[in-house]
C-alpha cells in the first residue's frame, strides 16, 4: 500500500514537470496581466497629446463612468445581436453539412474537396476579408452594379448606411469565415458516435429524421456545447470584421459598435484606466456566460 502510493507520487511528478511550461507562460502572460488590468482600472491614466496624465488613484470612478452612461449596454446588445445573427445559421448549416458528410449511405463524391473549400474562408485574414466586403458593397461597388444591371434596384443601395444591412454583412462574414470550422468539428463528433447505435435504430425502424434528432443530436451534445462556448467567446471578442467594415466608427449610429471596438476607442489615447475597467467588466461577463452554458448543459444529464 505504502509502496504503491510512493510509486504513484513519483510517477505523478512527471505530469507536474510537463505542466511547468504551460503554468509558467500562463502565469506570466495571462494571470499577472489579468491582475494588473484590475489594478490599472483603479487609476486615471492616459495621454493628452504627448503629455501623460496620471496615473492618479481614483477608486472605482472608471467603473462608474462606464456603467452610468448606458452606452455599454447598447454595445453589449449590438455584440450579442450580431453574434446570434451569425451563429444560428452557422450551427444549422454546419449540422446539415456535417450530417451529410458523415453519412456513408449517401455515398457523396469529393467530400474531401468540399471539406477543404468550406474551410478556406477561415484562412483569409479577417481584416482583408472585411476590406473585400467593404469594396464589394460600397455604393459604387460590384454588388450594387450587378443589382442595378439586373434592374432589381434603380439606384445604389447604401448597404453601410442602414442598421440591419450593416449588421447582416458583419454576421454574414462571421458565418462565412466560421461555418467550415464548425462543420469539421461537428462532423468529427458525428463520426465518433458508435455506428452500432445507428444500425440498431434502423433495425428498430427509425426514419433518418428520427435518427438525427433522437440519436445523433443527444450524443453530439458535448461537442455542441464546446462549439457554443468557443463561438460565444469569439463573439464577445468580435472586433476586426466590424472595425474594418465601418472604419472604426460602428456607424450607422454606432449600431454595429461591438464591445471590443469600444475598448479600442479608449486605447487611442492609451487610456489604461477606462480600458482596464472595461476589460474587467468583459471578463466577468464572459465568466458568467460560460458558467451559464455549463449549467444548462449539465442539468439535463
Amino acid at each position, binding site marked *: 500500500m505504502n509502496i504503491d502510493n510512493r510509486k504513484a507520487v513519483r510517477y505523478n511528478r512527471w505530469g507536474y514537470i510537463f505542466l511547468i511550461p504551460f503554468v509558467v507562460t*500562463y502565469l506570466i*502572460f*495571462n*494571470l499577472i*496581466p*489579468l491582475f*494588473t*488590468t484590475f*489594478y*490599472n*482600472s483603479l487609476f486615471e491614466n*492616459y*495621454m*493628452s*497629446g*504627448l*503629455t*501623460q*496624465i496620471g*496615473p492618479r488613484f481614483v477608486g472605482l470612478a472608471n467603473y462608474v463612468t462606464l456603467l452610468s452612461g448606458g*452606452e455599454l449596454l447598447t454595445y453589449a446588445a449590438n455584440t450579442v445581436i450580431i453574434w446570434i445573427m451569425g451563429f444560428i445559421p452557422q450551427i444549422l448549416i454546419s449540422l446539415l453539412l456535417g450530417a451529410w458528410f458523415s453519412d456513408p449511405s449517401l455515398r457523396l463524391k469529393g467530400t474531401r474537396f468540399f471539406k477543404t473549400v468550406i474551410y478556406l474562408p477561415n484562412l483569409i485574414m479577417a481584416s482583408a476579408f472585411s476590406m473585400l466586403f467593404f*469594396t464589394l458593397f*460600397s*455604393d*459604387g*461597388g460590384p454588388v450594387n452594379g450587378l443589382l442595378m444591371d439586373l434592374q432589381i434596384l434603380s439606384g445604389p443601395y*447604401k448597404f453601410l*448606411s*442602414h*442598421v440591419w444591412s450593416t449588421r447582416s454583412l458583419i454576421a454574414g462574414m462571421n458565418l462565412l469565415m466560421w461555418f467550415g470550422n464548425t462543420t469539421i468539428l461537428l462532423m468529427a463528433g458525428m463520426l465518433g458516435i458508435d455506428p452500432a447505435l445507428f444500425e440498431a435504430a434502423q433495425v428498430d425502424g427509425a426514419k433518418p429524421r428520427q435518427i438525427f434528432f433522437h440519436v445523433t443530436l443527444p450524443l453530439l451534445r458535448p461537442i455542441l456545447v464546446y462549439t457554443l462556448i468557443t463561438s460565444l*467567446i469569439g463573439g464577445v*471578442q468580435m472586433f476586426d470584421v466590424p472595425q474594418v467594415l465601418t*472604419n472604426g*466608427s460602428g*456607424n*450607422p*449610429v*454606432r449600431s454595429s459598435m461591438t464591445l*471590443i471596438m469600444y*475598448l479600442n*476607442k*479608449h*486605447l*487611442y*489615447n*492609451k487610456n*489604461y484606466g*477606462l*480600458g*482596464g475597467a*472595461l*476589460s*474587467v467588466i*468583459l*471578463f466577468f461577463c*464572459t*465568466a458568467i456566460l*460560460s*458558467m451559464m452554458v*455549463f449549467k444548462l448543459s449539465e442539468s439535463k444529464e
Partner: protein
Amino acid sequence: MKRRLISILVTSVMATSLISACGSAGSTTIGDEATPRSATIADDGKVLNIYCWNEEFKSRITDHYADYEEVDATHGKIGDVSVVWNITPSDDNAYQNNLDATLQKQSEAAADDKVDIFLVEADYALKYVDTDYTVPVADLGITAGDVADQYQYTKDVVTDSNGNLKGLSWQGTPGVLFYNREAAREVLGTDDPDEVQQYVKDWDTFNQTAEKMVDAGYHMTSSVMDSYRVYSNNVTSKWVENGKINIDDNIMRWVEDSKKLYDMGATGTHALWSADWSTGFYPEGKVFCYFGPAWLINFCMAADTEGSIGYQGGWGAATGPQGFFWGGTWICAANGTDNGSLIKDIMLTMTTDESVLKDIVVKDDDFANNKNVMNEMASSSDYSSKILGGQNPLGMYCAGVESIDLSNLSSYDSGCNLDFQTAITNYFEGNATLDEALDLFYQACVERYPELSY
C-alpha cells in the same frame, strides 16, 4: 462540483486573457513628458531617419535636392549619410501613434535610430510643436531673415506658445474650387473661370447652382465632406474653449447646407479618399466640383491616369464661396538629432531656395511657400497648368493665401474634425436626428480626449 466551478473559472480567465492583455499594457509607464529638456543637436550622424505618412516629401527630395541619390524604395544617400524613409500611412492615426511611440523612446535610442526629421500637418502640428520633441529652427542656425519671404500663416502653424518657430514648409495650401469644365459648359453654358465664379460666389448661389446640376444629372460635389474645410477654416471660435467642446456656428451652417444638398441628391456622404469619393475624378463620375489646394489636383486626383478629367486637362479653377486652406506639410527637426547641419541644409534648400521652389511649381503644380516667387509667377504668362486646361491658377492662390486666418487652430482639431464628420453623417443619412448625431460626436470626442467635457 466545486472542482468543475474552478475549472470553468480558469477557462474563462484564459478566454478573456486576449482582452485583458490589451488593457494591461499600461503597467509600463512612460517617462514624464512634462520635464523640459534643452535642445540637443549633434552633427556627425551617419543615418538620417525621416518619418512621414506618404511619398510626397520623398518625391520632392528625389526631384529637387541635388545631392540625394535614391538607393531603393525606402533608402537613399546624401553624400556619405544614408537616408532612411519611415513611411506610415496616417489612416486611423497610425502615423501619429508610431511617431509618438518612437519619439518617447528618442532619448534612449541609439544615435543611428533616433528620429532626425519628421513631418506634421496643420491639424495636429501644435501637438508636437508645443513640446520639447521639436527643435526651434533658430537652434539649427536658420535666421528670421532666411524665411522672411515665406507666408506668415505657414510660420504661425508651427510656432510654439513661446514664439519659437519650429518647422518649415515648402508649400502653401490655399484652396480653391476645381470645377469640371465639361459640366460647366453643359449646365452653365460657360467654362470661363470668372464666369463660373459668379455661379459659386457665395453659399446661397452655390446651393442654387447645385439644383441646376441635379437637374442635369450631375452631383454638385462628390461628398458633403468636400466643402467641410471651407466652412471649418472660416470659424470664429476654437473646437475647445476652456476645456469644453464647442461647435462653431459656421460648422453648424455646414451641417444645415449639406443636409439640404444631400437631401436633394446633389452630393453623397462618402468619406474623403474612399473609392466612391474618387469617382468624380473621371468623366463618368458626373461630379461638378471638388474643393482643394494645389496638392489635391496634382497629387491626388488621378491626373496621371489615362481617361481621368485631370489627364485630359478638363478641370478649371475658381475662387469659390470662401477662402480656405487644407493640409500642408511641415518639416520639423527632432530633438536629439545627430544631423543638425544636414537638416538645416535640407530645410533651407527645400523651403527657401527660389530656383528649387520655382522648379517645384513648374514640375509638380504645387504652390510654393515664397511670396516673391509666387507673385512673379502669378503675373507671368510662362506658367500654366496642364491639368487645369492651360489656366494659371497662381493668382487665385496668392489672393487666397492672404486671407488664411489661423487664430482658431487648436491641438484638438484633427480628432474633432474626424469625429464630427463621422457622427454627423448619421444625421445626413437620416439614421439620427441632429441632436442624436451631436450627442454621438460629444461622446466620441470625450472618448478620444478624456480631459474634455461638454
